């Protein structure tokens, strides 16, 4: 009985220690160490890339954002002035028909009194009409 227990303990101990399997376990420690260190470096590379390029990308984004914003405001201002100019031009042209312009030119040429147009406030339609004597003075 006692011998049987000793055998059991011996067998269990030998099994648990598994010295044969441990000895036959082939692991190239230098290769594994190299893999571990290389993996660390390859993991660090993208991280260092992020550290370098992310702030740079942010700066570029801010810079180009400002440039685009300035261009937009300039373009808007230019567009507004163009619209005003074109509307003024179109207004001045569209108010008079070609026959009316020709008639006005003829009238100015044959007019006995020279009209001093520099004294006339052309912003006022009334003064313009008075200067052209198209309406009688009150």
């Amino acid at each position, binding site marked *: 009985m006692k011998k049987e227990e000793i055998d059991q303990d011996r067998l269990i101990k030998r099994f648990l220690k598994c010295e044969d*399997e441990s000895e036959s376990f082939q692991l190239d420690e230098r290769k594994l160490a190299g893999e571990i260190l290389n993996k660390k470096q390859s993991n660090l590379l993208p991280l260092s890339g992020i550290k370098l390029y992310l702030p740079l990308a942010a700066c570029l984004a801010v810079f180009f954002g400002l440039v685009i914003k300035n261009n937009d405001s300039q373009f808007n201002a230019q567009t507004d002035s163009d619209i005003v100019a074109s509307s003024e031009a179109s207004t001045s042209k569209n108010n008079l028909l070609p026959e009316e312009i020709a008639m006005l030119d003829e009238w100015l040429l044959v007019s006995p009194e020279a009209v001093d147009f520099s004294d006339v406030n052309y912003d006022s339609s009334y003064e313009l009409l008075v200067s052209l004597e198209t309406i009688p003075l009150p």
Partner: protein
Amino acid sequence: MDKAVIQMEKISNGDENALVELINEWKGSIYAFFFRSLSNHADSEDLTQKFFHRIYRAAGTYKPKAKVSTWLFTIARNLLIDELKRRARRPQESMLVEWETGSSVESSGNEIEEILSREMSKLGENQRTALLLRVQQEWSYREIADMMKTNEANVKTWIFRARSILKKAIKPQL
């Protein structure tokens, strides 16, 4: 400064020779611990390699208040528990391996060893780990209790029960 602390510092600083030295010193013990816990050579080999990857990442956190062996086996045990949880979450994979190999444990060609492997795989993780640390590493009950964060009485009970189960299993073969 403690030799182990210096070695861990070197490893955390990327000293290849220090890492090689550590792997050479511990690969057998760690493999044996995994192999008797999982009863599978390929899984144990993978886990051993994963263990040294983990050690390399954790080397900077090693504190000399714990023995280096205690620290190493704490990490090994955590890895093992993660692996056992992973297997429990994906039983299909384990069943596929068992179907391919015809058994949950690898055949060693030795009937008693196969019986013992099967019984080991049925033990609770606490019982198995305590028994392995006691027999393989020849740790005291106190050391095992500290590592497993329990008291000596629990450790003694786990080891006694585990031994009893293994003895009972091989008794008919003797």
